[in-house]
């Protein structure tokens, strides 16, 4: 089906929430771990809730790491969400995990002990670059976060948006046909749905609107 989005199934908790949000937007989607289905879809979403170490184990045991690299090499637009925005970096401090390295960088723990951890709730984004994913998003829009670790890309060019929580961290990252949000667009009300809608029409090229 035209415009089909595959949601990569590696047992992550928010698969069905992402599916429900896409169905609500009338965007065709399927939850799958089959390489041929994933590679033949128009776009791919890589969700995630949980711990990096366990997630990478499942991904490797199902051979999905190779599939994900192939998706990215083939230029298929790819959206990582939450844990899916972390394990696309090179390495995570969580369980000292070697990750997929789609974007260079590291995943770090919030270290300010005066803050409540996890960073849980609604927070704003400061746009660092124009990107089709952020088209039409109001600067005051807030998004739902729940995480104890945060992405720290090694190269500033890969930071599309930042968020304040004790420190300023990269909450939206991207490189070529890969984009990822630390927040949950599928749980961020109308503004989050707009992000998913933008992704559903993105061709994976061009950082500018």
């Amino acid at each position, binding site marked *: 089906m035209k415009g089909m989005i595959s949601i990569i199934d590696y047992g992550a908790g928010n698969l069905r929430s992402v599916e429900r949000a896409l169905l*609500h937007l009338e965007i065709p989607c399927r939850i799958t771990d089959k390489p041929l289905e994933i590679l033949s879809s128009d776009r791919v979403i890589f969700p995630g809730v*949980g711990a990096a170490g366990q997630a990478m184990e499942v991904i490797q045991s199902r051979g999905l790491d190779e599939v994900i690299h192939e998706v990215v090499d083939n230029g298929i637009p790819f959206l990582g969400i939450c844990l899916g925005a972390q394990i696309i970096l090179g390495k995570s401090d969580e369980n000292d995990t070697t990750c997929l390295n789609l974007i260079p960088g590291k995943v770090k723990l919030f270290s300010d002990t005066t803050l409540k951890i996890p960073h849980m709730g*609604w927070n*704003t984004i400061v746009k660092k670059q124009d990107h089709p994913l952020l088209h039409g998003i109001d600067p005051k829009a807030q998004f739902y976060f729940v995480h104890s670790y945060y992405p720290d890309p090694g190269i500033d060019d890969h930071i599309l948006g930042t968020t304040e929580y004790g420190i300023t961290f990269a909450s939206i990252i991207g490189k070529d046909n890969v984009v990822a949000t630390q927040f949950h667009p599928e749980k*961020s009300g109308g503004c989050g749905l707009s992000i998913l809608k933008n992704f559903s029409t993105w061709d994976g090229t061009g950082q500018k609107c």
Partner: protein
Amino acid sequence: MLSKRIIICLDVRDGKTTKGIKFKGNVDIGDPVEMARQYYEQGVDELVFYDITASSDDRGILIDVVNRVAQNIFIPFSVGGGVRDVNDMYRVLDAGAEKISVNTAAVLNPGLISEGAKIFGNQCIVLGMDAKHVEKTEKIPSGYEIWIHGGRTPMGIDALWWAQEAEKLGAGEICLNSIDADGTNEGYELALTSLISDAVSIPVIASGGAGVPEHLRDVFIEAGADAALIASMVHYGHYTVGQIKSYLSREGVPVRELI
């Protein structure tokens, strides 16, 4: 900056939203799916569905409610009440809830917190606590005791100790309900809220006693709550979520504006 969250609690019995006072005398006030949709449109940050169904045979009704809510609203929500084991947790998460609130079952079996956290992640496990003010004793040094079974059974457990213990076991958040303040509409119990909030590093939701928007300001600014649970002040149409947020915003509390 992280916003303070406003969470609306819907007590659900036999598929209907009900509201009681001091855990007693409930009356039906509407369809939870429709109410959830209205509050979502008003800009609420999160919802909690609390199953107070008397018979365990009827638990399927709540799962159906959760399913229908998840198809229509796209903000986080949790489900509590009657969650006894990991299978119950799986059922509500699978139906579309983000988090599970455990209360009585966790007091009786603290391993349920660690087991749930290990399988679903800490962020999925909310510890619901019903605390009541008592005289400080050697056994209850904080002066707040844990009660279970919906506020009917005192446990002789110190609330402060239990909050810290639950954090160690892997709870991702605490929903702290004051039995004394619940249903009074006279304000949250600020001393209890700041006692617990200062003692743990996970977010604390204040619950019980909200009647006017000033009560939310007080619990956020004076007691340091991360989120505030409300029910009757919106269920009876006294306030909309928008009115409460406008007030809080004017008072300098960071809240999410509906866009």
